[in-house]
């Protein structure tokens, strides 16, 4: 793999406007099952841009761009709008709520965090018992979520109620080459898809699905794929980069992906064995245009592709992710350059797609 460089070819680029959009997307609250805020941004951004746009029964936004020629491949691109978060479950005392997590949040990420609750973004905190009340450090154990509370204070507490959703309160910021925010998984994908709908390669019919409920079971992608019935699909997501040093200084052999090494192409995860024809095509595109890419290590995890490829009589599918450290926590970190290369790789991969690719057996 070559070092991180940006493709020279014309493709949608990441400029201040794209960064500003990503910032708005990351700061929005859209926990699985209530994607209203992100959906509103997507609809606004694509107003007058897409040839066709609809919101389906589950809340997916389905936007289409027609190809310049008839008989073009119908390509579904999916990016999930939802993020992991919490739901208020029961008010215990004024402004203090029991809560449950939604999506895969490690409960060790919760104590001592600030959160935003509901559509009014009411601020609250997840407090813990002061360290002074322990007699020895040996008493400090993982605090189960059942013992934690979201505290909004008595005033704001009156405006909140059980059933509302909450996320970490982190605001987006940039640090040198890095983008830091909550929910980079998967607002990076959403922002990427918006750019592709704005400036689509004209040789394919682009079917963009901004999906709901990925984090609770790929539900939106499933019905979107059934409805669109595309020739092939690419899930655009953000995948963990665990590229930190190992505790004993040994070689890190389970990094999943690495920041700065370009978009991550999926080979196999818990839900999908990527279509080898699409893997080869993505890699060939990267090689030909000098766009860096990496293969995500095979193993667990999953994307919308897990639901998409099983619809109807089978849909050739692959996933491409922007690598990001610390997914599903209060602050995740990605590289702007990786994002830019992801956008470039996707754009040119689509641009170079022809029906011949799928005529051979996988």
């Amino acid at each position, binding site marked *: 793999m070559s070092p991180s460089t940006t493709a020279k070819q014309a493709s949608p680029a990441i400029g201040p406007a794209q960064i500003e959009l990503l910032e708005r997307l990351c700061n929005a609250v859209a926990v699985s099952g209530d994607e209203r805020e992100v959906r509103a941004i997507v609809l606004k951004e694509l107003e007058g841009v897409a040839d066709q746009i609809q919101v389906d029964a589950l809340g997916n936004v389905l936007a289409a761009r027609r190809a310049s020629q008839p008989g073009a491949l119908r390509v579904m691109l999916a990016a999930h709008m939802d993020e992991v978060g919490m739901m208020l479950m029961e008010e215990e005392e004024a402004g203090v709520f029991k809560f449950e997590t939604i999506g895969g949040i490690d409960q060790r990420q919760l104590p001592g965090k600030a959160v935003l609750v509901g559509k009014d973004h009411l601020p609250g905190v997840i407090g813990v018992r002061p360290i002074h009340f322990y007699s020895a450090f040996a008493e400090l154990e993982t605090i189960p979520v059942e013992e934690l509370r979201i505290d909004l204070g008595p005033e704001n507490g009156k405006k909140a109620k059980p059933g509302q959703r909450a996320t970490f309160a982190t605001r987006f910021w940039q640090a040198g080459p890095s983008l830091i925010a909550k929910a980079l998984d998967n607002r990076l994908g959403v922002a990427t898809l918006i750019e592709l709908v704005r400036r689509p390669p004209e040789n394919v019919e682009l079917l963009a699905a901004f999906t709901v409920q990925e984090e609770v079971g790929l539900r939106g992608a499933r019905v979107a794929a059934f409805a669109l019935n595309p020739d092939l699909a690419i899930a655009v997501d953000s995948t963990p980069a665990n590229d930190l040093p190992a505790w004993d200084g040994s070689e890190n052999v389970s990094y999943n992906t690495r920041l700065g090494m370009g978009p991550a192409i999926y080979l196999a995860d818990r839900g999908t064995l990527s279509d080898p024809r699409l893997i080869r095509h993505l890699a060939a595109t990267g090689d030909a245009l000098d766009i860096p890419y990496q293969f995500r290590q095979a193993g667990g995890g999953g994307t919308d592709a897990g639901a998409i490829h*099983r619809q109807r009589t089978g849909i050739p599918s692959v996933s491409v992710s922007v690598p990001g450290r610390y997914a599903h926590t209060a602050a995740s970190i990605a590289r702007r350059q990786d994002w830019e290369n992801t956008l470039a790789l996707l754009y040119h991969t689509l641009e170079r797609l022809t029906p011949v690719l799928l005529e051979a057996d996988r």
Partner: protein
Amino acid sequence: MKALIQQLSEATGPSGYEAPVRELVKSAVAGLADELRVDALGNLIASKGSKSQDGLRVILTAHLDEIGLMVTHVDEKGFARFATLGDALPQTLIGARVRFLNSAQGVIGGEQLDSGEKLHRLDQVYIDTGAAGREKSLVQVGDVAVFDRPFLDLGQRMVGKALDNRVGVAAVIEVMRRLETTPHEIYFTFTAQKVVGDRGATVAAYGVDPQLAISLQVTPSGDTPKARLAEIALGHGPAIKVRDSGMICDPRVVRWMTETAENAKIAYQLEILEGGTSEARAIQITRGGVPAGCVSIPCRYLHTSSELIDYEDVQKSVALVVELLSRPVPWL
């Protein structure tokens, strides 16, 4: 059929990369089907017959794929770490030899554990391809391997890699050969991506839109020393599945299978499997629903590089399925 079983056992076809074994099956069934097609996920679907008035559209499946190993990292010293495609227990991997799709070979080793009581986790085993360092490695991230084991003929019993489910594949091919007349329109479907979660069967069944489904596969036997309490034994005939941890077979189908076996004097066993399931699970809930059942061939040492089966069980399974498909079903 033995030669075919050997050929299929030694063929390569890990989940998602079934092309080599699919090509082998394609050539074996080419003259036997009215139509052959391969779908988007790699299922091979061979159709035969047309539906008579009292016939049904039937899907008969056997999965093609076997457990695979995919390289996730090659370390500085040249050892390849891997993930499995399908579930294999790490302790059964150590010492096994593997062959990659790019024909590189290797052997599986395990890290030294701090206690003899412990079992290896998957991240504690690796493939040694003999490469002296990362630069010399013939394999890279994403390369896929399968077990490398020659077939062993023990007479009545047979041992091989991937007998789960190549013995089922052989049985379905043999059914195609022997079935002379049938009232049904039959889709002999050799499915891809079973061991990763019945993915091939899911989309194949959607495409075929069957009115009846039968899956042919292997099932673990309980006839080895200190095995868990399971009734299935080698040599006692095909196992007609009643339930497993993923599905309950349609009682009409189960009754039809047992009565057919009894009438044809084919010995059979009844299967209740805990901790495993069949791809018929996925077919049963396809579209508006499909009555589904399974014929299983008892097998020892599942998901290891040496799976052991009884030849007579295979032959009786074939005989049973031929009997089943030769006549209309009784519940219409």
